[in-house]
């Protein structure tokens, strides 16, 4: 069920079949519907059964589908991922929950060396339709290891697909598409937005999992983001509009592969590219997008691409995280830089972007 809806900026009202639900409820609905539609779908994770997950994302699912399909696992992430590989060998479609972003690393070897490579290793004989759900990102005042943005590790790994929704509707759509995909998909949940509400139409034709969407149309600067900072980027578009600058905000949805067509056609109109993510700068998703768009749209660019990201630091203690996370003012400062207007770096760094 795919359609080519790539624009949600037209501002139409709530569609007929939609109901307003929280982000977390939309994910819960996607899991429930997938479990109902396909008997090969099984959920695995720590505390996902009796408790319903530490974020209650899997609330009620074990009661409905039983402990063999919603499996409370021992506290061993590599064990979860490795047994999911075995279940996939058997023809199952495991949906694995990693409790927090910073807990994924014990399973990193199974993800990189097994999940990502087995289809290639067996020349297509063994499929790995595993969905790896990871609540990610900061802004919720958590202790260490609970606020990280590890997406670049996965986008750098051939064989994986990586997606991150920014709206409840995409929370539902992308998860359904991820579970239905015959490829392994890392599905990154912006946990800061779990309680955000939005319209969700469970019945609509779902866009391709690989498609980026224009979340706000504009003419002066192309702003590319995904996940949690999308909300901030849309706020920045409103604030910039008040000052007469028109931002076109693109929600990537898929960060591996990236839908460069949508970015290219936008940049060919605006000539200016700003990329926003919470993860650190170096080797991040923004670095690759900046390089690709520079290669593909060099003649159209009026200014070097600008990235507004987290710093290249370990995720800081909660009382410092507001410095680290790209906020409205830092994004608007980036808009000034890419527009060649006076900005925070004007005096200091004439070679800066």
């Amino acid at each position, binding site marked *: 069920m795919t359609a080519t809806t790539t624009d949600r900026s037209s501002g139409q009202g709530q569609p007929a079949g939609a109901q307003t639900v929280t982000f977390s409820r939309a994910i819960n609905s996607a899991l429930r519907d997938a479990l109902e539609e396909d008997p090969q779908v099984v959920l695995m994770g720590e505390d996902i059964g009796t408790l319903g997950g530490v974020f209650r994302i899997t609330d009620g699912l074990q009661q409905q589908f039983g402990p063999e399909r919603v499996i409370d696992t021992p506290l061993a992430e590599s064990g979860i991922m*490795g047994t999911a590989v075995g279940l996939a060998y058997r023809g199952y479609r495991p949906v694995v929950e990693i409790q927090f972003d910073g807990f994924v690393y014990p399973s990193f070897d*199974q993800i990189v060396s097994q999940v990502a490579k087995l289809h290639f290793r067996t020349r297509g004989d*063994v499929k790995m339709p595993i969905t790896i759900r990871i609540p990610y990102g900061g802004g919720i005042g958590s202790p260490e290891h609970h606020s990280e943005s590890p997406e670049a590790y996965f986008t750098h790994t051939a064989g994986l697909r990586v997606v991150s929704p920014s709206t409840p509707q995409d929370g539902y759509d992308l998860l359904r598409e991820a579970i239905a995909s015959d490829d392994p998909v890392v599905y990154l949940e912006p946990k800061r937005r779990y309680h955000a509400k939005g319209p969700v139409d469970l019945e609509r034709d779902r866009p391709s999992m690989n498609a980026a969407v224009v979340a706000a149309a504009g003419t002066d600067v192309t702003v590319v983001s995904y996940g949690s900072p999308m909300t901030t980027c849309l706020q920045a578009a409103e604030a910039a509009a008040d000052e007469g600058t028109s931002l076109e905000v693109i929600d990537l949805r898929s960060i591996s592969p990236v839908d460069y067509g949508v970015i290219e056609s936008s940049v060919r109109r605006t000539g200016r590219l700003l990329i926003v993510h919470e993860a650190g700068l170096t080797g991040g998703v923004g670095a690759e997008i900046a390089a690709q768009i520079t290669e593909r749209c060099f003649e159209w660019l009026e200014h070097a691409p600008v990235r507004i990201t987290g710093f290249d630091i370990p995720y800081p203690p909660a009382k410092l995280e507001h410095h680290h996370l790209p906020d409205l003012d830092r994004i608007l400062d980036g808009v000034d830089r890419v527009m060649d207007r006076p900005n925070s770096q004007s005096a200091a760094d004439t070679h800066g972007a």
Partner: protein
Amino acid sequence: MGSVTLNTPPTGLPQLPEPDLLQLLSPEGTLSTEHDLDPWAVEVTPELLAELHRHLTEIRRLDTEATHLQRQGELALWPPLLGQEAAQVGSALALQEKDYIFPSYRENGALYLRGVDPLGLIRMWRGSTFCGWAPSEHRVGAQQIIIGAQSLHAVGYAMGAAMDGEASATVAYFGDGATSQGDVNEAMVFAASYQAPVVFFCQNNHWAISEPVGLQARRHIADRPWGFGIPSMRVDGNDVLAVLAATRRATERARNGGGPTFIEAVTYRMGPHTTADDPQRYRPEGELEAWRAKDPIDRVEKLIQRRGEDLDAVKNASQQAADALAARIRSGLAQSEEPGPAELFDHVYAEPHSELERQREHYRLYLEQFGDHSLPARSDAAALSTASGTDH
């Protein structure tokens, strides 16, 4: 404190007894009874002994042939199994069609007995492929190079088989070194938690490249599974009859819903870790000779001789089978074609991937300038090379 060293045994603690080494066929070629194995031991007929001898000989030939091919530059690498033939034959022959195995890289003998084309094994070590067979066809997973990772795959597969209500056993093969890995320990936790119908088959060949088993295990490996709630057996891994009976017992237990079992097959790696290794740098003097006296094929031959059966006839038949296998490998290798550049890109993903398609198309154009057409064009490649929006 000052006089206590790492090697000081604990005092005042209860001492666990040493596990028995289960054996049916001694190195001298005599048969004995073994309470823990007898109900699962098969009747030792002349036909069985001839069959076992043939399998052991074929596998040894597969191994030496591959080692020679590596020396001749035909293979990039080969991990010899010399000395471990009985552990692989005994375990593989206990399996039924529905059973599934997840091997490490050294189980080439077990895989051959499972019906995997020996050329498929050879081609992997030639560098032509990462898996020379279809796992779904033979119910044999891809050979695993990451130490111990496959133990979890076996547990997950076994969980799935149990959920499907299938009476089958899944076997995880690994070595003594793998028992230090987190994955093997997590596999035992998961197997015990879900009572997965899995058999952990550990070939303790005494060496993890240069590290002796004593560096990794202060007690017998077979002691460990009990702590996870998994029963284990310590078996003479050079005794094909004992390995066969132990694996029959463990797989039967799995198929009947009895849960996981661990087998430590005590054997010895007579050769190097791989053809790139030099065991003379670490193997103590005399060790090889001591194990040569426990050779798995010699003891079968001694038994045949003791029973007054025609050993020469058995050896001749085995030799012919081994010669035929070697000829099959050599002629197959001469005829096998190496993969083209399409194999670089095919199967990285199961579904279309716009960025990889773009890279493939760029490489195709690069090759074309030399008149090299080995990478065929994709019908949709042109659309992908431009700003096209979404794939699909």
